[in-house]
């Protein structure tokens, strides 16, 4: 049987359906769990926090959700080594929960996804490149070094920010999982002004990944906006789905073990 993945929905989440579709497309048993039913989370093997505006981004994007009771089991699971993936608002929540880059102290953030330098919400198509050794991200089992993933950066608060020494630690200790790049994999300045051109953070154990851009929004040929859409097979999984395939592989390896 395939691994059970909970897609956690907070008040204000808005990307849960396409996230479930992407997870199901790679053979995972994904289902929605609402903030009102934290007890339901116990039976899941892995957790995905999708995009949106949980609790209206009050205080700071992700800050209120990070303190929601529904996060208690997620934080415990993360610290117990279970896989936890956060996309966009989910990434902001993981940073606010202190799970990435991670110090072991729950709900003590050391880095944040702060307002874009433009001061505005902006939605642009981007590519992100794996910036650490593949063995640093067991949550994406089998991903090749320097892998380039197409995605949409659709957020108002996606700028990686942290104190200077923490940024140094993030880079030195391999927490900077993905950086913004062009489609050929050349690192480019982040559209949101992120420090280190950072697009994603991973924790020390490599089981918690927080990525700002949405791979699930460039997951099928019909979503491609260049010549590559002209393959005819518009419903074929592609691009961003590879990201989820590595996540599924990680779960299967975990089950096999």
């Amino acid at each position: 049987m395939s691994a059970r993945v909970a897609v956690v929905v907070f008040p204000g989440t808005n990307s849960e359906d396409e996230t479930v579709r992407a997870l199901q497309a790679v053979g995972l048993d994904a289902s929605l769990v609402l903030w009102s039913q934290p007890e339901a989370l116990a039976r899941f093997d892995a957790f995905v926090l999708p995009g949106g505006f949980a609790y209206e981004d009050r205080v700071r994007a992700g800050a209120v959700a990070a303190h929601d009771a529904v996060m208690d089991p997620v934080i415990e699971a993360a610290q117990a080594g279970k896989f936890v993936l956060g996309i966009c608002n989910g990434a902001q929540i993981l940073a606010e929960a202190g799970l990435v880059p991670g110090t072991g102290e729950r709900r003590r953030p050391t880095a944040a996804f702060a307002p874009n330098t433009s001061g505005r919400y902006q939605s642009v198509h981007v590519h992100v490149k794996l910036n650490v050794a593949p063995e640093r991200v067991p949550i994406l089992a089998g991903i090749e070094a320097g892998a380039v993933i197409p995605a949409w950066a659709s957020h108002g608060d996606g700028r990686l920010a942290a104190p200077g020494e923490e940024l140094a630690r993030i880079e030195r200790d391999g927490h900077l999982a993905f950086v913004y790049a062009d489609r050929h994999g050349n690192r480019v300045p982040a559209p949101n002004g992120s420090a280190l051109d950072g697009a994603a953070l991973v924790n020390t154990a490599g089981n918690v990944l927080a990525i700002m851009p949405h791979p699930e929004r460039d997951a099928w040929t019909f979503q491609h906006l260049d010549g590559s859409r002209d393959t005819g097979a518009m419903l074929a999984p592609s691009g961003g789905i590879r990201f989820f395939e590595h996540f599924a592989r990680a779960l299967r390896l975990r089950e096999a073990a």
Partner: protein
Amino acid sequence: MTTAAHDDAVALGRRLGVALSDEEIGRIADHLGRIPTATELFAFDAQWSEHCSYKSSREHLKKLPTQGPTVLLGVGEDAGIVRLGEWEGETYGIVVAHESHNHPSQVVPFEGAATGIGGIVRDVLCMGAEVIGVADPLRFGRLENEHCRYVAQQVVDGIAAYGNAIGVPNVGGDVFFDESFNDNVLVNVVALGLVKEKDIIHSRAPKDSLGWDIVLVGKATDRSGFGGASFSSLSLDEEDAEQNKGAVQVPDPFLKNVIMRASYAVFAELRKQGITAGFKDLGAGGLAGCSAELCAAGGMGAEVALELVSTAQKDLPPEVIAIGETQERLCWIVPPAFTPTLLSIYNELYSLPRVARGACAAVIGKVADTGRYVARYHGDVVMDVDLDFLTGGVRYSRPFELPPTAPESDAADRAVVANFDRPLALLTALPHLLGHRDVASRVSIYQRYDGVVRGVTSLPPGYADAGVLVPVPGAPLGVAVGIGGNPRYGKLDPRRAGALAVVEAVAQVSAVGATPAGLTDCLNFGDPTIPSQMGAFVAAVDGLSEAARGIGVPFVSGNVSLYNRSSSGNHVAPSPIVSCIGTLADVAVARTMGFKHAGSPVVVLNGPAGAFGGSVIADVLGVTSRALPAVDLDWFTRASACVRAGLQRGVILAARDISDGGPLTAAVEMAMASTEGFGLRIGGDGVASAQGRASQYDETPGYVVEVGDFAAFIELAAQHRLAIRLDMRTIAEPLVEHVDADGDRVAAIALDDLRRVWEEPLRDFYGAAGAA
């Protein structure tokens, strides 16, 4: 009834500040046989407002075609529904609604524009549909004006803040800047939904619903938006701006996000239990208006207890509870046996009370079979009226003067041609066109909106003339949305402007290979009590009707917004704005507008008419022509079919409709959209004369297409009896090059330079994301 009683009723109405005329108040008093209560006067004020009753427009709207094989649900409810197609044995429909939020957006632009999205989304939701997309036609004043700059910024901020938060992709829209909108911004919004034909929920009390529960869902009722319906039927006066602000509702997209998802869960439960319920959103007229229309539509009556309504403040007067237009509220009519399930989904599973203070689902009344609407407050009857009289509204036959029709040529047109005497003029004009406020790139606006949330967007705004969605997971079915409506044409000839709006919207969906399935209109005009303004409205409806019948596409929904004038008498340009919904059996047909190969023929369908009235080139050259191109609907229908066929067979690699700026401007935008950076070469006999060069900026409707298999295309064009013009080819170099008959370069401009000119005007105003 005595004149004294009449006078008392009128005096009460005046004291309450309702917009009803003395005569209307008299009719109400006569009908009731007594002096109406405050609650009743406010209820009639809303229901009989232009906004709700279409009292000036209804008799003319009858002229629009509304029937056709693509119509699943025609005009009549909160939204219409067109047939998308079949998938796995189910028939899917696309719910289509169109609204305006003009007055509120002028007074408080951020909230006004945001609640515009909020309201239209409920219109789609209450048909039992999932909301899958919105599109915004915007008409701003000139940005040279400080207040217009503020309004233009805040409107976009409001649309972004609301649409992004609820997670509905913004898939289209257009923007014009014109001085006639300096005092009255136009903020229209189109919303689309997806529903299976068998799961459509109607906005009426079902048969045999006597004794069923009336359930109010959503935000706690407060004073916001009290009197909104009649406010939107008044002329805007600077001095009143402050007090009018109270009539604008306060948006809460965060709560709406949760209400939408909870409602989807309710739909699923209703389907599981096979229950037919009634569902409607609260808009103009508030709770009383909504529940009254629900029960009237079902031929029933209603008994409502206002003290059961969750309110934000203590001791709200009953008329505010009954008529106030607090946002984010919907009304259900369900059998009592289902009520506990309904309440637990909203109040517990989706915990509305936790999401916003006072928000909840609560039973507030019962369906009766009396044909009357009876509202009590702590036992006292505050409203007791005949439903048909309340919701039947009133009708006016306003006197009107039809405007003159535009000529098909004007001596001034020659002045435009004269400007192209020198060959060099062909390209020297180009940067002026691309940098014009109505042509300049809108990408910095599109980036502010989430065009790809829900993961079903195939073509977001800016990648083609129409936005394209693939809304049924696993199915290749596509939905395209196009928008048309040019205020420069509206000023010259409202009738022609109406026809051209339909043509442009249809052309946009055809340019992505979609088949037009339905139209929806928002008719924005001035004061209907002024015969010339009413005449502009009547003429525009004639034009819409003429074009829709000629092309064979029905209207499935629409909206009318009148009194778009300021106290200073500045009326908006007559603005019939049309959206066309197109369907695709296979979304693979929909291509981006960028050039795909180097060396492709770039063909222009349609010869120029030489009528430059309302064109961008005329504006750039400071020429005033009154001539508008004639619309040959038979030709246009054949040309559209040819473009669709060409895309379906892969003969056409990229297509655009010809609009602002003409064919050369359209082709250059296709080059700038090419991911490979392919350029454009123009030359030959077509541009050897001043006439020919000027024609490259002629806005006569038609298409520009990049052709793959030229022989096959010629055959296709012949089959559709179409003449073609071939003056352009794509080239590998990233530039626009003008060559003479011998192929020698006359002039050239780098695409990057053109892109800079094209992006600058709005990028500096709305800002843009960094390198991506």
